[in-house]
């Protein structure tokens, strides 16, 4: 056998070497991607933990003057982020109140009518919604709520923007969970003479609860750190505010305010740390729920 020299055939050794090299490069690159994460966490924890104390949760953010005085006297800047925490709770809470029922209904509808023109359109819209940049949702909420309804910046407008952001995740998880449930479950209920709406509410939803709540929690964790839409809607406030027609603060908004104020800049780390912790806890609990109450058939 004579292999012609015009076609170069790589030797086995070279091929194996190339394979090993490729694996090495791939694994290295994959783990290099984790470096920024470590760097971010390190920075937040190192600079942030000193600020976090009880008063950080109970007092409102200081104004520039107070912070400047404390800085001049070399003291720790007083105050906390209570207005942000309450604001985030209110805004995210109202957003959930809007998005959860709407998302559930859409999700149930999609899973019950897998085919059909309307379902196709709804699915298309959900895909579209998922890709809309949050700042555009902020614009929309501004035009819908801030101008005509509350005639001024308001927590409600922020909630509306965030609720649109949450919707796709809820709809998708509801649809997918319900689709996975065996049809025998539904048929059994219907054959016992249970009305259709009761079958959905009392049989399908409770069975799929874990998947659905995972979707909801992930949706919440996705919106909890949003800043851009809130800048156009909730604006920010220096006091604790429970009235949703008034401007309100939120933790990410506070981070932004601190960042822009040279006297308050030291507070960004504590506030970011808390924000990250909240999101982390939400993510972990979503995972735990998904793992623990996984629907198995």
């Amino acid at each position, binding site marked *: 056998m004579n292999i012609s020299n015009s076609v170069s055939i790589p030797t086995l050794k070279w091929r194996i070497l190339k394979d090993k090299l490729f694996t090495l490069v791939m694994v290295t690159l994959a783990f290099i991607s984790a470096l920024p994460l470590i760097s971010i966490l390190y920075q937040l924890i190192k600079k942030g933990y000193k600020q976090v104390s009880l008063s950080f949760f109970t007092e409102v953010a200081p104004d520039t003057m107070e912070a400047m005085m404390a800085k001049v006297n070399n003291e720790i800047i007083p105050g906390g982020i209570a207005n942000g925490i309450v604001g985030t709770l209110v805004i995210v809470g109202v957003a959930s109140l809007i998005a959860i029922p709407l998302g559930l209904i859409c999700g149930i509808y999609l899973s019950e009518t897998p085919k059909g023109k309307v379902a196709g359109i709804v699915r298309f819209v959900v895909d579209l919604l998922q890709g809309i940049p949050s700042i*555009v949702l902020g614009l929309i909420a501004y035009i819908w709520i801030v101008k005509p309804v509350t005639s001024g910046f308001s927590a409600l407008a922020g909630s509306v923007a965030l609720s649109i952001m949450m919707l796709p995740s809820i709809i998708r998880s509801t649809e997918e969970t319900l689709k996975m449930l065996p049809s025998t479950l539904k048929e059994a209920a219907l054959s016992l003479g249970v009305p259709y709406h009761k079958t959905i509410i009392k049989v399908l939803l409770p069975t799929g609860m874990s998947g659905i709540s995972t979707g909801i929690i992930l949706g919440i964790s996705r919106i909890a750190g949003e800043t851009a839409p809130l800048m156009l809607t909730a604006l920010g406030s220096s006091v604790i505010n429970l009235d949703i027609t008034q401007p309100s603060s939120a933790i990410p908004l506070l981070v932004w305010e601190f960042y822009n104020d040279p006297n308050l800049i030291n507070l960004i780390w504590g506030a970011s740390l808390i924000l990250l912790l909240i999101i982390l806890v939400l993510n972990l609990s979503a995972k735990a729920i998904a793992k623990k109450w996984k629907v198995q058939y």
Partner: protein
Amino acid sequence: MMAVGIVVTLVMGSLPAFKEFGLGFIFSSEWNPTEGRESYGALPFIIGTIVTSILALLMTFPFAFSIALFLGEYFKEGRMASILKSMIDLLAGIPSVVYGLWGFYTIKPLVVEMGLSAQGFGIFTSSFVLAIMIIPYASSLSAEVISMVPSSLKEAAYSLGATRYEVVKNVIIPNAGSGISAGFILAFGRAIGETMAVTMLIGNSNEIPTHLFDIGNTMASLIANQFGEAEGLKYTSLVAMGLLLFVITGILNLLGKMIMNKLRS
């Protein structure tokens, strides 16, 4: 209903701007809020957005692709995979303001130290941070597609004596290519719409950036920056900018989703 509402709202809100400037709104490079000589053109911001996002995509590619291969083919299970997976999840969960802070306090000084630019702000810095932000989006979808490549194909190649690298190159990439590109298209859409981190790092100038380390601005970041005090023509121009952003990201997103849905079914 909602989507129609969104489109109608944006179109209505931006009509005055388009009426005033016509198509020139998209192609004019002047952004001048001086009263009496108001003129608003979106070109610098469109260019800024596209340049930063493409750069981010290029930078993210080797990393996201490695992660996708790692999770989708090489180490599907096991401790390493679960560690990497939770790290990627965490990366996805970090709010964009925090990325902005990190870019400002860690990346910006680094860029200055390396002598790449005097201020450290600009296209490059924001693209770099964007690249990290979109790693999770690009990699998770690609990993899913790569893991869907039928094992019979891979086994056939192995049985012919192919090394793993050759399987990746000749079987997995051709097979999963369209899905991988869908993942990157979706990540691209994310990068285009990203606001906070970019606002904090890009330097916010209204000129067309001329080189990699020049300062510039993106559409999303412009809206965030100038919306507060906007009225009249400026306000409608910003809404028009939002409409443009919506259209661009919408097209990208639907394209990516279409490819994915085709693959999944």
